[in-house]
């Protein structure tokens, strides 16, 4: 079964949880939600600037984004586990707000997909939340966040995220939605997170395949987020498409003469 984006039962359940008052307060948004459900995720993004201009202005751009390089990723899941550890104090793939999806029988590069939150310009999660639990944190660089105290667990934001898989993440332990906050609230980490601070996934990724940037990536498709973070050292591994520029044999075993002579290191006594 899918995460529920298109499943009627989940949607019905979500609606059932609303009180009449919820509908009165948020009815307009819910109508918009239903309209978007009918579209495919990619089409939804293209079409979603449907929100009226005054709504767009209500969402100032995030001052931080995660971009990534899915060809550089080795699928170790360290980023996911760092995310769950710093936020919850446990190691869990299901609770991680960045998802790495892979099939080791697959063919490079489609064998693996990286799925962090995009901190969208027009965030459908914020826009659709019937109780404003999902909000733009203007005090903290406009990060799109979810206040779990306010969240009623209706899963609307899961269904409304136009990405596949949805970047809003269901926390089955507390039965609330969560999402990437760029590590603003990481009670299990000694570092300051959020914009101007550090992000657990960025810091722990051994491949440096995730990067924090301040400039908003191109919103239309994934290319703005899935970028090339490889430099000449990566190319020397001879792994990716443009590997032919590597001199033949450069990653061979025992064949090439040593390129430089080692200085004897100073081992401490």
């Amino acid at each position, binding site marked *: 079964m899918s995460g529920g*984006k298109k499943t009627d039962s989940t949607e019905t359940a979500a609606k059932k949880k609303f009180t009449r008052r919820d509908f009165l307060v948020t009815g307009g948004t819910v109508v918009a939600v239903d309209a978007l459900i009918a579209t495919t995720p990619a089409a939804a993004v293209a079409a979603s600037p449907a929100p009226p201009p005054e709504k767009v202005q209500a969402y100032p751009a995030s001052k931080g984004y995660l971009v990534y390089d899915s060809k550089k990723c080795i699928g170790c899941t360290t980023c996911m586990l760092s995310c769950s550890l710093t936020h919850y104090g446990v*190691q*869990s793939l299901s609770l991680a707000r960045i998802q790495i999806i892979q099939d080791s029988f697959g063919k490079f590069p489609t064998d693996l997909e990286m799925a962090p939150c995009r901190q969208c310009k027009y965030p459908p999660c914020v826009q659709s939340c019937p109780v404003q639990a999902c909000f733009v944190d203007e005090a903290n660089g406009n990060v799109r966040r979810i206040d779990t105290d306010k969240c009623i667990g209706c899963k609307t934001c899961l269904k409304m995220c136009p990405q596949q898989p949805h970047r809003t993440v269901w926390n089955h332990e507390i039965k609330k939605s969560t999402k990437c906050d760029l590590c603003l609230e990481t009670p*299990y*980490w000694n570092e300051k997170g959020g914009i101007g601070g550090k992000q657990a996934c960025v810091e722990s990724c*051994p491949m440096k395949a995730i990067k924090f940037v301040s400039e908003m990536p191109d919103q239309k498709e994934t290319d703005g987020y899935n970028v090339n973070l490889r430099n000449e050292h990566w190319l020397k591994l001879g792994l990716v498409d443009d590997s032919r520029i590597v001199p*033949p044999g450069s990653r*061979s075993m025992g*064949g090439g003469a040593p390129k430089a002579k080692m200085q004897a290191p100073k081992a401490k006594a």
Partner: protein
Amino acid sequence: MPGGYTGKILRVNLTTKQVSTIPTEKYVEFGGGHGIGSAVFFDLVGDQLPFDAFDPRNLIIMMASPFSGTFMPGSGRCEVQGLGPMLYPIEWFGHSNFGGRFTAQMKFAGWDGIVVEGASDSPVYIDVINDQVKIEDATNGVWGMDTWDAQQEISRRAVPGLKQGEWAELAQNCFTTQIPAVVACGPAGERKSRLGALLHGPGSQAALCGFGGVFGSKNLKAISFLGTGSVPIADPKAFMDARLWFRQFQWDVDNPRDAEIFEGGGYSLINGAPSGGNVTNGGPNRVPARAAACASCPRGCKMRLATGDSNEAVCAGTMVANVGGGGMFAAFGRKPDPNAMPTALSQKLTRQANDLMHRYGLGHWQVMATRGYIEALVREGVIGKGKQIDFELPPAGSFAYHETMFRTIALREGPLGALAAEGAARMAEKLGRYQKDVSSGMLRLTYYGTQEHYDSATQVEWGYGSILGERDLMLHQMANYPLHWMAQSGNPYLDAEQASKLYAEAMVPYEDDRYLVDYGEGPTGIYSDSKVKQVAWVKHYEKFWIGAGGFCGWRWPQCITNNTADRRGATPHAEPRFWNAVTGQNKTFADYMELGHKIFTLDRAIWALQGRTRDMEVFPDYVYDQESRGSVQPMVVDGKWTYATGQGRKLDRAKVEDWKTRFYKFEGYNPATGIATRETLEKMGMKKVADTLEKRGKLG
């Protein structure tokens, strides 16, 4: 319950189809993985030994560690234990392990391990999703599949609506984007081949002991885990700090230290850089690929190719299945033979032949020995058209040759298949040639039916460590990669004296001994008390950190590294720092090494119950009688540290025996038998083991 554990071990009886749990708490003193596995084995069937590996009483134990499912670097392996049908002359209580994400999913599903006992009367597989455990019928298409198809089919059946790239909703409103982690035997295992391996993913395999054959004997095709839970961490902040501290020991992919020396060339296998494991994807014909990692590994030594062939394969497999000769050598930087098959084709066919071996569920290291023996017997005229074993193989090195070889062995086809599926040792025995061929070195089954890996007369920690165990030691990172391969590169980054000094510093609690890695023949060399300590360290590290901790033998220990300024590695600081953060325990590296000593002692007690005696812990004659090929290692020669090969030396029987006497005493074992004394066992808190040994007349 300390952090890192889920608290329960799954117990499945395939005879009665009964599913129950064992509380992990009962075994926490053994750490995890191999330690808990040995203790469970002893408790459940120790007093019934000896019996055969294919007896339904044999167990398959797959234990995770407190690190499994966490981001502890290089801890993604799954330890498999049980009586190993591949091992010889007795099917020792053996261990084998594989990488990937199996133990991670096991932990997320809420289990610290699985113990399978009994045998089903018809083929089944075990499907675990969180706390839901099902013994599923495998006759409906899964039995008979190769290891790849079986894994993918079981994944589909386990989560029917699973679509890659989407969240799947499991029971209890839990979601995951991950696919089930399945380990399966292939057609070889189904036919109880002693060469039968367990495959997880396309290339991760547990192969040395023949556990694929044990799966087959139990009518068990596969085990699948998928979980949405979490692993508790005692001190999350300390664990995160430790993980970020550890970055200094990793290869910096964007800015490697001393790149001009360590990038590529002789260092590509050992520098810690991504990929490097698959030797058929190199040279000018390389196929675009991803470096691919096991769960939590910061290196990613494997590859996934754009062609999808030989995904996650490593060097040994592609060496065994070498088609045309040119492929591997191109990757190794050697000039291909101009008359050979074009390199690109050779590489492609080698990769595909390797995949075929994996699909059949054959273990490459054992196939290598068996295939080599078959070739030798062809040369001797024993195998061939109209010969004693009437069988004609296609031309050596062709794809057809490998296809025929793998199919014949896996499906037990004809007289050759029936013999070879028993493994090289039993094949030789059945032909009445075991003694002759092994003694002469024609068949180099150096350690209990497993083949020689590195030269036993020079890399002695590997040789001694193997004969004191139950199979090939297979631990490259102890001294082989960092020392042998560093020197072999032709440009060692530490001279022999510096290397020996840093090694000694790391090898706590023997850090005061400067000669732990002296491989010379002098007073501090291969027969010395320093070597006693080195081998004890290797066995204790093997049992606790590698075995109980689920560490990868290609990543740990790390006594030296090219990735730090002073070349010091993460050992012995990283291991207890991580372990204590996860579990909340507060012990030292030396404390945990003593636990490794305890686990080693328990394993040896189990072997004693199976019939192990001191006189079995010897090398075949050729190791003592023939001049060694040598293997470059640090040595003290004429009072000075140097790198030398030791070529031409012979191991001295009497000196090895004297060394063994000192080793047994050092470990608290009776030197006459090599088995632990009651005093040693009781000091370690294993009175019950002493009682069982005594009852059976086996106490040391």
